[in-house]
């Protein structure tokens, strides 16, 4: 296995894969390797086995099968016209690397994607074959995330779903115009159409207990932020519609990152990391805090999230009339809107207040730091002035 050539490949193909932000290894059905003859388990929750100095977790072996690509997406390091070094793993090499890494507890499993070589079906076949060999030949019970190539045939996508815990298709850019401009060979209808088919299939299998498994951990997608001109309001509108339409587990926002040998068509600048962070916060407000995509930015002319303050705080400031809230009587949906109170804290507050009146030091213990929430809440011993 030790050949310098293979190590070069690993470096090139890990480097090319790192712009995909997805790292989750959660949501797979619980299983283990007892009596299987193979290795691996999934506990339902994911595990981050390491963290790189960019603060991102390393959970899966995230690599491309090849970084050769017939597409020419401007923002992508592997685009056809880029001058990067090209490499290609064999199916067997990926299988061996995954198993060797897994046995040493470096990873939770594999996240395999690829540039499009020859055509979509040929590429998808290779991805499926890696997953099949891991699952069938090696009885691998760890996590597998495969990139579904939207242009590939339905039959191949179905096979991918049989072996993978999660499939994902990248929406790439928040608007169709952005896609036309920066990823001219990709089409919104093809991407969304494939997401729709995945959703129908995932729902169908869930409804029928004896159906063969199909991507039990659902589907996710990624949107690149800051490459095209879409503002945050547009991004959040698209996100809300994607969550509602295709039951996505997650949308990853990836701040457009400068890449080696970047295209002339893109501005050379540092990635908008804070903007990406604010979008994640807004995304959470929509998914777990009952916020509607339109109200997060209501009243903001530019349609951009404030980089200085988090979106929940910004919302509270714009809606001061709704505060302060009496934490002993306020309903859950309003407590969730108090800056500094998370969903868990709110649930504990609600359980606790059934038995005793909450005072300020109670909140402090439930919550940790009180500073952010203090101006927005009322307790018998505290009223903000």
């Amino acid at each position, binding site marked *: 296995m030790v050949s310098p050539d293979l*190590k070069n490949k*690993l*470096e090139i193909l*890990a480097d090319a894969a*790192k*712009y995909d932000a997805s790292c989750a290894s959660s949501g797979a059905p619980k299983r283990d*390797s*007892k*009596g299987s003859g193979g*290795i*691996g*388990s999934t506990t339902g929750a994911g*595990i*981050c086995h*390491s*963290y*790189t*100095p*960019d*603060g*991102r977790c390393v959970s899966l072996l*995230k690599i491309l099968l090849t970084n050769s690509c*017939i597409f*020419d997406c401007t923002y992508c390091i592997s685009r056809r*016209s*880029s*001058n990067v070094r090209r490499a290609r793993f064999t199916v067997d090499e990926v299988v061996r690397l995954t198993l060797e*890494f897994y*046995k*040493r*507890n*470096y990873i939770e499993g594999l996240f395999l994607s690829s540039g499009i070589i020859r055509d979509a079906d040929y590429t998808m076949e290779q991805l499926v074959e890696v997953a099949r060999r891991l699952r069938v030949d090696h009885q691998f019970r760890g996590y597998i995330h495969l990139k579904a190539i939207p242009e590939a045939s339905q039959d191949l996508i179905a096979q991918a779903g049989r072996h993978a815990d999660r499939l994902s298709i990248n929406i790439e850019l928040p*608007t*169709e115009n952005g896609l036309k401009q920066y990823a*001219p*060979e990709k089409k919104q*209808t093809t991407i*969304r159409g494939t*997401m*729709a088919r995945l*959703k*129908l299939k995932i729902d169908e299998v869930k409804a029928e207990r004896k159906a063969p498994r199909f991507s039990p951990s659902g589907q996710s997608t990624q949107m690149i932020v800051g490459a095209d001109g879409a503002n945050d309001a547009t991004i959040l509108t698209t996100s*809300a*519609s994607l969550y*509602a*339409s295709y*039951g996505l587990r997650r949308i990853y926002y990836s701040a457009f*990152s*400068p*890449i*080696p040998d*970047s295209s002339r068509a893109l501005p050379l600048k540092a990635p908008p*990391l804070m903007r990406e962070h604010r979008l994640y916060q807004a995304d959470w407000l929509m998914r777990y805090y009952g916020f509607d995509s339109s109200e997060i930015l209501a009243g903001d002319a530019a349609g951009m999230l404030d980089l200085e303050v988090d979106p929940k705080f910004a919302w509270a400031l714009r809606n001061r009339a709704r505060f302060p809230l009496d934490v002993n009587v306020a309903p859950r949906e309003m407590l969730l809107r108090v800056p500094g109170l998370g969903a868990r804290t709110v649930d504990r*507050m609600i359980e*606790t207040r*059934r*038995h005793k009146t909450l005072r300020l030091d109670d*909140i402090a*213990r*439930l919550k940790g730091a009180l500073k952010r929430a203090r101006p927005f809440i009322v307790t018998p011993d505290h009223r903000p002035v």
Partner: protein
Amino acid sequence: MYRVTMRNETSLPEFRDHVRVLIGARIKPAAVTFSTTESADLFGEAPPADRKVPAFTVPGAYVELAQTVLCHRDPARFALLYELLWRLLHDDRKLMSIHSDPLLHKLRQMEKSVRRDLHKMTAFLRFRKVEDETGERYIAWFEPQHLILGAAAAFFIKRFANMRWSILTPDGTLNWDTNELGYGPAVPKAQAPQDDAMEDWWKSYYASTFNPARVNPEMMRGEMPKRYWKNLPEASLIPGMIAAARTRTGAMLDTAPTAPRQNKAGDIVMREFFASDAPQENLVAGTLAALRVEAGSCRRCPLYSQATQTVFGEGPERAPVVFVGEQPGDQEDLGGKPFIGPAGQMFDRALEEAGVDRAMVYVTNAVKHFKFEPRGKRRIHQKPNASEVEHCHWWLERELALIQPKLVVALGATAMKALIGKDVRITEMRGRLLTIRDGLTIVPTVHPSYLLRLPDAAAKAAEYAHFVEDLTAVARYLPEIAKAA
């Protein structure tokens, strides 16, 4: 003063036996000290063990908490757990729900610390492979913060059931032979293997998956505290990676873009991709199939931007009757076919009852993209507005011109609006034959989704029967669409 000595300090059964005796003897928390065999307290007497202990139950939440907290290294944990138990039994049975109670809060914090340590052990433990005459063996050295060796065993057994492995820690060792778990005494770190050939590969991967343009060491340290670094092979790379990050990013930004690579083969593929791409506004399709393709890239109104696809009409090219609905719904948008959702199923059932052969009719919608409001994981149907109906009318007109049906059935007000350009009340016009321009004959009835929305079961049944009657009248008007008996 009473004294209790825990021989196996993380054992829940042993702790339970002790506290049952204490509770039975009504010994208050302040009157007992706990110790482990290592730190045995010489003072104090053993609680009276022979007393008959009355039965009592404790909440499941307490047992769960105790099981985890017993793995904490803090020697005060036994006394804290006993105090909580005493208060649960004597003061407040609901105490486990009062999350702001200072004692419960403290124990929860301890529980959290143990859980985090357990999680980090499953994450940061690294095996090294050794080979001897008996075959492969994977050995790890790990230094847990708490006494979690026993609690962590199940995870590693499940994951690596068919590997032989050992986990060495300063508190003891675990050995798994693919069959049975053995516990052993603590060993020094020097006994663990010092290297593994795969680590170079792992380090290459780790370095390559790092994006220097996003460097954020504080975030990394928050999730992977420095105290774990000494046993992580990849951690030795961290300082160098951080140091070089700025230079690497600067170099990327400073380097002028190079000339795009030429690739003839790729360019050929490109043309194929573009072939059917541009919206072909001026093309007037001569067949339904061609019209459907054209409609697929319709951008006449903004509805396309959040919908999956154009849902075009479906049915025979020369159908005698065309049913026009409002717009595709959730299922239609996903599946790309009209009338397949709940309303479509009701429509099919009504057609069947009216004796109409579904294969003989053409079904379509006034608006061909789904208009909705996202609400969490669901989409709430929204009525298309006048402008959307107006824009989409372009397609409906062409469908009708190509099919030339003898009759058009308008299902609901939006369909009528699209067909005659006016707002009408369906209840007033229902069932009447209207002849409009070009001799096009229209008959209005309700939309099946209206039937689905009626809350009252009796009204629903009556309205459904009325709908079937309308369809039966259509079948009488056009005998050729009747189902063969």
